[in-house]
């Protein structure tokens, strides 16, 4: 006889079900995708920016350098997304400021991908450390050297097919095509149980020579390399009942980058610096405190080396200061938290010399409850005070414009559990949020019905259907547009994973979305991303020192214009993608050396992530990593 237990959970966790990657532990309300270090390696992720390809949802890039992850179905640069914050990037609890006009320059983050231990993706609005990440969050956790000295080095090189080869001096010659790398990174560190120190340095290089880009953006330099390099330092210490991390990093990016907000490529020099501290400590009694404080600075200047045609015009300095404190206290079976987040963002146009800035204070209240069969969180009431100030070069006159807005997010969940020997649940939730009127006004609501069932230990399937409604006020640049952008979105997602043995891991996820009663602009913006996506992976280690991987990424075509520009011809539509990758990893010398050979897009299917973007053809990448001792 099937015994059913039904529980009602009211939860404030502003998250959605993540159906890509590994489904969550049973009963976890915050449904998230976790990519482990092993999965990152097997997928051939050799730059932080490449995480964007595998986070689920829809990722877009034009040149392979600036990426954008879009969990809400609206591509960066599209009108409904203008003025909205990007997907939040958090490294070791510290918020990053890696956005440049809608594109995330993830490679300028103050860590190398080889330092990353795991990636946790929350593909929907989430309250984190007192701040609202309304378009989702990607959280990176770095590894820590804990046992004496350690030195590591990595090298990576790859090449796309389609070069002219020996025909370059014959009538059969064609333009050169992209190459990947040489990417180099090194790390030296020392750690004990109580503290650790690491110094890392990296140098990444990638060519942007796709004929499509050259023709469209008039970048006539055939050897258009974009480089990223810089050092980083990480210090960690165990104290006050918790762990504390100090992270410093500096990077410089030279070369072409696509600016989603402007719809063009520019050759720029970017300087990026980050200094931050984060950690936890025990408060009185069972209270614990999570904190972080960071400051990021960025300088963007036109590249002084580039040709006049390709040189950029974007120039500014930007700084981002952010601090948050979150206090958590268990009360019975509940955990209550209150958080305070303060941030200041300032931009100084280099030409005028003035600064403009904005600061906000947010208060967050949250309580969560965990029982044997369920876990959830409840209640969000958020009041945000916000002000803007400008300072002229000579007068230093500041103008303070206080504003206030309320943000609400809630989740209602009904949980049913089948007999003890199996696991299944049905979850229904609805949430909504409004953001500050100082931003383009945006309201959003979504309902989702999900089901997951564990078939055997290590095997589970999950399906969910969603309906979302978005209403977005026009940005300043489009005040003349007729009314608000509004529209519904229907979605269906399914995922399955199976780990029949420690040596074999299989994952597959499918997602489909479609506009539903949307205004014309909103409909067009939604059509600029594919409507269907399937992501599958098989990782098989037949012996201890060998791992074989098969990765499949299928995506439907997309036809809409992300910029709302009807002049863009449909012939520029992004074709359907059928990408298949094979990877072989072999460890040598008692696992001190790891060599990897990747054949990416082995069937040479059209692989493009943006309708204006480069086509990434069949390519082979060879990498090696050395770890001592």
């Amino acid at each position, binding site marked *: 006889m099937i015994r059913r237990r039904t529980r009602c959970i009211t939860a404030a966790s502003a998250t959605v079900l993540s159906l890509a990657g590994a489904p969550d532990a049973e009963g976890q309300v915050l449904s998230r995708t976790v990519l482990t270090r092993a999965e990152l390696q097997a997928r051939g992720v050799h730059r932080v920016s490449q995480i964007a390809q595998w986070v689920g949802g829809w990722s877009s890039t034009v040149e392979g350098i600036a990426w954008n992850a879009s969990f809400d179905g609206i591509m960066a640069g599209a009108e409904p997304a203008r003025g909205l914050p990007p997907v939040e990037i958090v490294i070791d609890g510290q918020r990053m400021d890696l956005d440049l006009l809608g594109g995330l320059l993830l490679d300028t983050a103050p860590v190398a991908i080889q330092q990353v231990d795991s990636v946790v993706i929350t593909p929907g609005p989430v309250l984190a450390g007192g701040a609202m990440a309304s378009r989702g969050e990607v959280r990176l956790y770095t590894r820590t050297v804990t046992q004496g000295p350690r030195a590591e080095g990595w090298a990576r090189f790859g*090449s796309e*097919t*389609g*070069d*002219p*080869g*020996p*025909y*370059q*001096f*014959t009538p*059969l010659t*064609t333009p050169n*095509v992209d190459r990947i790398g040489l990417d180099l990174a090194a790390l030296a560190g020392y750690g004990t149980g109580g503290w650790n120190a690491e110094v890392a340095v990296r140098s990444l290089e990638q060519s942007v020579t796709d004929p499509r880009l050259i023709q469209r953006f008039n970048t006539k330099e055939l050897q258009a390399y974009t480089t990223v390099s810089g050092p980083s330092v990480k210090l960690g210490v165990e104290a006050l009942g918790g762990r504390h991390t100090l992270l410093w990093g500096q990077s410089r990016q030279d070369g072409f980058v696509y600016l989603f907000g402007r719809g063009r490529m520019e050759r720029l020099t970017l300087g990026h610096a980050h200094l931050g501290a984060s950690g936890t400590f025990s408060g009185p009694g069972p209270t614990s405190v999570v904190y972080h404080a960071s400051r990021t600075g960025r300088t963007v200047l036109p590249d002084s080396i580039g040709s006049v045609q390709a040189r950029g015009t974007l120039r500014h300095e930007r700084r981002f200061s952010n601090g948050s404190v979150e206090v958590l206290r268990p009360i019975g079976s509940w955990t209550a938290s209150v958080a305070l987040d303060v941030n200041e963002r300032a931009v100084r146009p280099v030409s005028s010399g003035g600064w403009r800035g904005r600061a906000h204070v947010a208060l967050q209240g949250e309580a969560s409850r965990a029982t044997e069969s369920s876990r959830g969180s409840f209640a969000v009431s958020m009041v945000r005070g916000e002000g803007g100030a400008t300072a002229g070069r000579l007068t230093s006159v500041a103008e303070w414009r206080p504003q206030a807005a309320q943000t609400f997010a809630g989740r209602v969940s009904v949980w049913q559990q089948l007999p003890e020997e199996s696991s299944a649940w049905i979850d229904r939730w609805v949430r909504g949020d409004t953001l500050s009127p100082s931003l383009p006004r945006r309201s959003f609501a979504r309902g989702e019905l999900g089901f997951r069932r564990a078939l055997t230990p290590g095997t589970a399937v999950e399906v969910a259907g969603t309906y979302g409604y978005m209403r977005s006020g026009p940005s300043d640049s489009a005040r003349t547009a007729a009314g608000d952008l509004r529209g519904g979105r229907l979605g269906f997602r399914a995922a399955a994973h199976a780990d029949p043995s420690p040596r074999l891991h299989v994952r597959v996820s499918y997602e489909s979305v479609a506009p539903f009663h949307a205004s014309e602009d909103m409909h067009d913006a939604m059509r600029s991303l594919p409507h269907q996506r399937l992501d599958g992976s098989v990782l098989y280690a*037949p*012996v201890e*020192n*060998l791992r074989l991987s098969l990765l499949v990424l299928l995506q439907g075509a997309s036809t809409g214009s992300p910029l709302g520009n009807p002049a863009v011809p449909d012939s520029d539509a992004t074709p359907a993608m059928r990408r298949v990758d094979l990877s072989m990893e072999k460890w*040598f*010398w*008692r696992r001190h*050396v790891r060599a990897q*050979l990747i*054949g990416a897009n082995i*069937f*040479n299917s059209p692989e493009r992530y943006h309708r204006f973007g480069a086509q990434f053809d*069949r*390519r*082979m990448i060879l990498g090696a990593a050395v770890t001592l001792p």
Partner: protein
Amino acid sequence: MPGRSVGQRCLCLIVISTATAVSLLQGQSAEPFSTLELSVSATGDLGHDPLHRHWRPEPGVAVRMTTPFYLGLASLAVHRMPYTPVQPDQLDLGALTATLEWNAARRISGWLEGRAGVQVGHSTFKFHTQQERTFILEESELLSGVQVALLLGRASGWNLSLSAAHQRVYTSTPIRLIVASISAGYLVSTPSWLRTILE
């Protein structure tokens, strides 16, 4: 694979599936990395491709290192193949190819062994000129291929082999090469230090 004929696809499929099936059915006879076979080959390019309308292939040389893998045999090979121009205004061309190969092996009799497998690698084409350099003199591209070989000799010591490989270089105008080789090889036990590294 665009541009590849049905016949070539069938050839690849037959070689790969046969090799894999033989390996799986036969199992692994030698311990991984227990022996090392070093061989030197004289090679010839027998292909008829657009490349051969511009350059005439000359005899080449290849060196190869082969060791038992967890399944089948793994090899690392370097192949040097010079080309002379058909037209006098063309530059001399040299091709240097590095390949990683996997083969299934089956001993047919005490003296005869058959091998078949696949390879992936990287071809570098280098132009030779005495003139002042005003352009890129080196071009490189990925390649893949299949190969079969007949090996004459005991399971240890010297051996002689005949082999043929069909390679495809993924340049914008694909290059298809048919490389025939005659090789002399010598099989030794893998030195312990090298085996430590390989394992």
